[in-house]
């Protein structure tokens, strides 16, 4: 069941993002913090999970709104499953106890050092596995990484650059015949 929920979440994230894009609502709204409505986590927990998600998959080109999406997805999972809520509550507490100062106030290097020590824990793996889908199944992220997604709406790449690489010589025609006509 866990795997299915994981996948279902992924699909919902993708659908939600597409809907947001279509309705003209910009995801920047999430970056302000209060725009993200968390049912389970308090603001500090949300901010901690945000920093954690960014350190796990740190992309300078992505603003916080994409990482808030990860926090929101974790919040949904926690709301649905009490055991997950406990795992995440306890996990945030353990991050804050790892050093004298709270996790969010640590330098990026210090945060990485804290995470490195717990990266085989169920808490870390929950955040990581949710982040993989939340971040990389986000169509806005696809665009920023040069991945267009489905190609059948424009008829595939047969007439849209499937073989347009020009920094290497073309293979022999025996190895790579020309496309069929028609």
């Amino acid at each position, binding site marked *: 069941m866990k*795997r299915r929920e994981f996948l279902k979440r992924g699909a919902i994230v993708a659908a939600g993002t597409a809907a947001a894009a279509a309705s003209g609502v910009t995801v920047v709204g999430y970056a302000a913090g209060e725009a993200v409505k968390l049912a389970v986590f308090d603001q500090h927990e949300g901010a901690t999970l945000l920093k954690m998600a960014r350190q796990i*998959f740190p992309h300078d080109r992505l603003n916080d709104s994409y990482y808030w999406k990860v926090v929101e997805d974790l919040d949904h999972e926690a709301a649905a499953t009490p055991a997950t809520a406990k795992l995440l509550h306890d996990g945030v507490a353990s991050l804050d106890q790892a050093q004298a100062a709270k996790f969010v106030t640590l330098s990026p290097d210090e945060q*990485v050092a804290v995470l490195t020590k717990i990266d085989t824990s169920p808490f870390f793996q929950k955040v990581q596995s949710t982040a*993989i889908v939340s971040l990389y*199944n986000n169509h806005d992220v696809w665009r920023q990484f040069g991945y267009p*997604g489905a*190609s059948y709406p424009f008829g595939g*790449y*047969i007439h849209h650059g499937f073989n347009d690489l020009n920094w290497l010589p073309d293979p022999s025609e025996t190895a790579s015949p020309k496309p069929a006509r028609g």
Partner: protein
Amino acid sequence: MAKYDLKDDSVVVIIGSGAGGGTLANELCQKGFKVVLLEAGKHQSSATFVNDEWPAFKQLAWLDKRTTSGSWRVAKDFPNLPAWTCKTVGGTTTHWAGASLRFQEHEFKASSTYANVSGANLLDWPLTLAELEPYYAKAETKMGVTRTNDIPGLPGNNNFKVMYNGATRVGYQTVHTGRMAINSRPRDDRSACWQLGFCFQGCKSGAKWSTLYTEIPKAQKTGKLDLRAQAQVLQIIHDDSGKVTGVLYADKTGAHNVQRARIVCVAGNSIETARLLLNSHSSRFPDGLANSSGQVGRNYMRHTTGSVYGIFKQPVHMYRGTVMAGYIGDESKLDTKRGFAGGFEFETISLGLPFAAAFLNPGAWGRDYARQLEQFDHMAGMWIVGEDMPQETNRITLHPTEKDQYGLPIPNVHYDDHANDLAMRNYAFKRGADIYNAVGATETIAVPPYPSTHNLGTARMSEKPGDGVCNKWGQTHDIKNLFISDGSQFTTGGGENPTLTIVTLAIRQADYIAAESAKKNM
């Protein structure tokens, strides 16, 4: 479409509608047999396929829980997903890449050719390449394999250009766009490939052969096929004489039905085929059906796999076009000087961004991994597929406590890498990196195996009944009217993608069933 009564004991029941079961169903229907084809999954089509990796995975993949054990890294990375196979009409032919290579002569004689590989349970197949050649030819014609039957090869995409240039620069000779069951020109009422780039998510152009829209509708056209989707077989039933008489299955409402049968053919893909035989134990067969040898579930093979990705200064866009767009054949030969028995191929592979993040280095995180993913559109990829060694202890067993939604034990998949597998993988990782470095890769990434797509050997063919589960026709040694019709019957794995051989064996099995039926031997 035919509709047979549950009590009609003149039907042949086939379990599973993929490469083995779907093909066998059509072959038997064409010969006039009444066939009930039971498929656990739902019925999709090119129109309902979703070209988006996670949703497509959810739509097509077999997601029922399984457990894993053993030294293979899959047990750590994907503990409840040992295999990447499909639960849908058409089975894993909806997801396969299309590579269609014949086994080589020596691969049918692995035991005599490789001699004593310590710890391997090698056995020669009870048949030869010469016996299979006419059937390979039929399968290639049926599937429209490129570079056979005067069908031109597919045009190479960007991912292939990188592979081709790198491979030829390091001296490889056999480098081309492969023998693929993907139309390079319109054929069999299906279009030529649109280079969509989603071969693994269900082909929306229909250019790639799948039983879903070739064998199954052709079988339906005969009026002889009764296809029942969302029908999960729970048990194969036998009579006092030990012959099988039918199957118990749950339909989509969960209701249990018994379909009577004169012959039962099992093609559930190696994990489910073995699980079904084991779950069909009875007082007469306490260790499961067709298991007097004790070999059911054993000798599980999954091919020695891995991937190499290269990152380049200039863009590649590997995701454009055919996923398995290129092939290097030079390493498929037998040459133990490389430090291992058996051979392997390199074939291009590509992933979309969602799966690249999940599969490029499972468990990886941090600045370096993020940086690699940021170069997604500058990556080229290739897959390694080679022969792995059968081991008696690599096996499917019934879980002692965990049950599925029908109350039956779920399967555990145990796999330890053999030293030969590791030697082959490490050699291939190095040669793969050489190929990309020869064309200026700034970085290469050796990627551990994905969940198994080639699941083989759990009900293997053998000359002697004590060594395996079925004979050279896939007929079980113990029960005359029970057949194994999928990759489970492979005695050894060979170094080639298995689908063509599965289809070949299914065509041949249909001839045998027809001949034996005519002789009243069943």
